[in-house]
């Protein structure tokens, strides 16, 4: 493996980590709201947040490019704010990944929150805990399996994210060239040997990481039997 490969790997991990963290932070309130609300908006909002999925990633990337480009609304906003434009930056691919991966993180969280039911929160309220605090002390810990799934799905999906990153990232070494793009480059250049190598590293590393996480999780898991 070449040192540039190493850089690519670091960048990939950084991307996946940041995206996962942002997504967990972002999805948690949305999932919570969706799980608790009786508003009529629930179904439309659920449908909207699932939408990033149905657009093929390259197409999604293409539209994000339009939106964030100099003539797009986001582009004009960043321009007005004096910020450098988002496409072809690390920030840009983070945003793209976040949007595309959102449903995978949101759904398990929402399911987990819904599975808790109302009782534990009622109990917390009778113990003087304001809903805001109860959310952190009760809902979050009880939804742990959901967070676990959400994080795994989000992380893996970000590592494997390709279309969106390729489209709005522009394949710039050290900034937006992540492993998926690099492997693809090798394939296109008929460098199958290096592609294989890199893919093997990716799969091997991910397997070990996932294995450790799953083992840790099954340690933490509490028994569900009650007498």
């Amino acid at each position, binding site marked *: 493996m070449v040192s540039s490969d190493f850089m690519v790997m670091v960048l990939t991990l950084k991307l996946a980590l940041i995206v996962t963290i942002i997504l967990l932070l972002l999805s948690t309130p949305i999932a919570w709201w969706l799980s608790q609300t009786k508003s009529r908006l629930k179904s439309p909002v659920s449908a909207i947040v699932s939408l990033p999925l149905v657009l093929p990633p390259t197409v999604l990337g293409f539209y994000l*490019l339009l939106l964030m480009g*100099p*003539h797009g609304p986001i582009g004009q906003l960043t321009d007005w704010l004096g910020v450098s434009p988002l496409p072809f930056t690390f920030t840009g691919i983070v945003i793209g990944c976040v949007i595309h991966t959102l449903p995978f993180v949101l759904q398990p969280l929402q399911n987990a929150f819904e599975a808790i039911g109302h009782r534990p929160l009622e109990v917390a309220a009778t113990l003087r805990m304001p809903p805001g605090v109860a959310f952190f002390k009760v809902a979050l810990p009880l939804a742990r399996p959901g967070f676990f799934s959400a994080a795994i799905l989000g992380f893996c999906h970000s590592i494997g994210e390709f279309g969106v990153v390729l489209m709005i990232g522009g394949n710039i070494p050290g900034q937006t060239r992540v492993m998926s793009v690099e492997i*693809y480059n090798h*394939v*296109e250049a008929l*460098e199958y040997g290096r592609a294989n190598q890199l893919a093997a590293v990716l799969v091997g590393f991910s397997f070990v990481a996932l294995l450790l996480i799953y083992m840790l999780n099954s340690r933490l898991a509490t028994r569900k039997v009650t007498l």
Partner: protein
Amino acid sequence: EEVKVAVAANFYKPLQVLVKNYQQSSSDQVMLSVGSTGKLYAQIVNGAPFDIFLAADQKRPRKLVKAHVAVAGSEFTYAKGRLIFWSKQPKLIDGSERYLKEGKFNKLALANPKAAPYGAAAVATLKKLGLYNRLKDKFVFGQNIGQTYSYVSYGNVQQGFVALSQVYRNGKISTGSGWIVPNHYYPAIRQDAVLLSKSADNQAAKKFLAYLQSPKAKQIIHSFGYDVSDK
């Protein structure tokens, strides 16, 4: 009868026009599958059901012949690609390399040189001009030439190297402004077509390949800015 053609991205648009023209005189169905040359190559090696491969280079058709996947001797250069340094903005580039040399811009789009022959040509041009090291930090890569074009055409990158065929209609640059890179700045982009072995006896495919070499076809190809001279 049916002819299945795998075509490199840069030639997709011209080929659509060619097919229309071809079907005025033939009842054969011509079905197009577009992709980058590298991907199409991989698919063909693994049994993709195409009859004809229109690549963006010579390397891959030759490898197919060597591997007996394509019919030896069927390859020919259907077009020589030309490179343009282009911007969507009118009058930005004055038809010479001056603007490029000044380098007063943040980003420069080009196709991935490893995967796309047009990217390799762009790199060669910059090296020839001695600008490569100065500009290389400004590169933004499109995976193929189609993607590179979309970067520039939507203004995400103000200027870049694209295929002339993408911006050239009827003998002139149709929108924006650009500098058509002289042929000797980069190794020729010879785009070869090849008949695949599975379809060695497919008459319709052979007919279509023949059509591609006809004067009418050459005229259409030329109108997209390709070089069709026999050299």
